[in-house]
């Protein structure tokens, strides 16, 4: 287990081109020992490249990687003591489940007793104990992925376990249990876990820290709460949360207000330097509610539809040309007319050039 430092890392797959395109733009980051990280972003944004750089399968075009302040940039994969689980199960077909799980330990010359102990412990954790002597190729896809996962977890001393969308092939119920199991393993053994996903729910429920990526760029890194409440960019606001953040194009008005369809909405952001500039107001649907006793920051809307989504209602309303979405409590009655929505000033995010002010 180590602290992993990514220092000014960048990578291009066509370095000899006069104008190379970067799969990963320069960034620096520290992954603390024993924490859970999620790398979140759409397909092709550089998540897997980042993992492959850390595991040594890809050498970065620039920058350096440090494990506990030791530079490992030029260290081969096999010497890095890192574990990586791929999106689809990768198993050694000619081996049994036991041999698959024992393989990383055998390669590192562990003694037989230790191998038996570790393999049995991991098999117990992943419910693979009854299959230990079966040929690995005869298992189902999700059991095979458990083997992949098991090979990642069987070494106690790994610098980190990197997981590249590891639960894609696993059914939802087992997925939920495995995520919980991974959290338990992290808490028990203090193993650093890095989890790549494009599913924000997976990231939010799993990680202590989320790294959001877009187009080879690290857009924001922070706790799930930070990312949800104060997205650094409109991309993060749009990408995280369901439904996406409400975003309205507007202009700054006096007293840190913005104008939404002739209604002044007060914000807690200092907008004095942004007069007459095009800005965007962002507000999560979770923070918008039907006005009851509030006096300010109210906006009149025309209700378009109300969807009952089980544990909440999703209200879609219009004010002028703008569509506002609000998550309201299931028991809240929505009036037919004269509906006013309350937009809390402290939850408003103001963006200039798509970046948070």
């Amino acid at each position, binding site marked *: 287990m180590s602290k992993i430092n990514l220092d000014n890392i960048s990578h291009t797959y066509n370095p000899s081109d006069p104008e190379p395109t970067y799969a990963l733009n320069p960034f620096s980051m520290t992954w603390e020992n024993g924490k859970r990280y999620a790398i979140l972003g759409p397909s092709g944004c550089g998540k897997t490249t980042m993992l492959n750089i850390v595991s040594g399968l890809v050498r970065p075009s620039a920058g350096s990687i440090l494990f506990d302040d030791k530079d490992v940039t030029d260290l081969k994969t096999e010497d890095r003591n890192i574990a990586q689980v791929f999106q*689809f199960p*990768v*198993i*050694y077909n000619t081996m049994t489940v036991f041999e698959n799980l024992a393989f990383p330990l055998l390669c*590192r010359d562990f003694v037989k007793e230790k191998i038996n102990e570790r393999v049995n412990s991991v098999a117990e954790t992943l419910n693979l104990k009854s299959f230990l002597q079966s040929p690995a190729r005869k298992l189902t896809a999700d059991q095979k992925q458990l083997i992949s996962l098991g090979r990642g977890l069987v070494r106690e001393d790994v610098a980190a376990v990197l997981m590249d969308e590891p639960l894609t092939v696993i059914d939802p119920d087992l997925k939920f249990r495995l995520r919980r199991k991974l959290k338990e393993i992290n808490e028990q053994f203090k193993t650093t876990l890095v989890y790549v996903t494009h599913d924000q729910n997976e990231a939010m429920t799993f990680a202590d820290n989320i790294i959001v990526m877009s187009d080879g760029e690290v857009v924001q890194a922070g706790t799930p709460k930070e990312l949800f409440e104060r997205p650094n960019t409109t991309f993060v606001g749009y990408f995280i949360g369901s439904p996406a953040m409400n975003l309205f194009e507007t202009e700054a008005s006096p007293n840190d207000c913005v104008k939404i369809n002739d209604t002044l909405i007060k914000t807690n952001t200092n907008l004095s330097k942004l007069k007459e500039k095009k800005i965007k107001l962002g507000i999560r649907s979770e923070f918008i509610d039907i006005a009851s006793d509030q006096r300010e920051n109210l906006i009149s809307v025309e209700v378009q539809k109300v969807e009952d989504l089980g544990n909440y209602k999703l209200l879609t309303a219009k004010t002028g040309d703008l569509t506002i979405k609000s998550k309201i409590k299931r028991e809240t009655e929505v009036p037919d007319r004269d509906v006013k929505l309350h937009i809390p000033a402290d939850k408003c995010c103001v963006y200039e050039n798509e970046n948070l002010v």
Partner: protein
Amino acid sequence: MGKLYKILKYFFITFWAVFVVAPFLWALTTSFKDFNSVNGGATYIPWVDFEPKLEGWRVLIKSPANGGVDIIEPYFNSLFVTCTASLISIILGTLSAYALSRFTFKAGFVKNNDITFFFISQRIMPPIVLSIPFFLFLGAINLLDSLIGLIVVYIVLLMPIAVWIMVDFFNKVPREIDETALIDGCNPYQAFFKVVLPNSIPGLIVAGMFCIIFGWIDFFFAFILTFTEVQLLPVKIVALNSSITPWWSLSASALISVAPLIIVAFVVERYLSKGNLSGAIK
């Protein structure tokens, strides 16, 4: 519809089985006939239609001094040359194929696919084109009419087959398997020998089978590059022929020359049908 399909299916299978087995049965019965039984009209069933004789088989093991042809030595020569050349071709071909599948080579405009095609092109040109260069080459290094010389030539002929089959096979073995092995602590050689190669056994078997077949049945180069010191089975069988075609001994020699291939086919078939690679990923 289902019943008709079943009837047609079994009819076709039976027809095909007869089509495949009939020449063997024909050769088998003929090998036990003598001149009179062969030339006295069509006969099929031993002891009923004709009296079986072992002369056709005896000729094959009798020395030329006793009126035989002695195919035992050529038989073992063929086995030795085919097995050695196939083994070396498979080893070299597998290593080349792995390199071509996993690493990028570039020399001017020549890239991986061009190198693979270069290997295959050795088999595209007619053998006659290669005969003179081979003859001169073996002559220059004093390996004409020798087993070693034949092995060298057969390696050149068989290795493209191994490369061709194995490149295609390795391309289908997911790279993640190699990468996982590296992550698990193997160096690239260990990853190849401990993980990739055991996963490639069906490919190795197919490549090995083709090498053995092509090596075993070659007549052309065995005929051109050997004279008196060394003879391979196909050349010897042809030498059996004379003004009166000895159908009985030709049939017997045909049967024993095809025997190793039948054994290989039976052994290999069970490995092929296992589909060892299926499910290595996904």
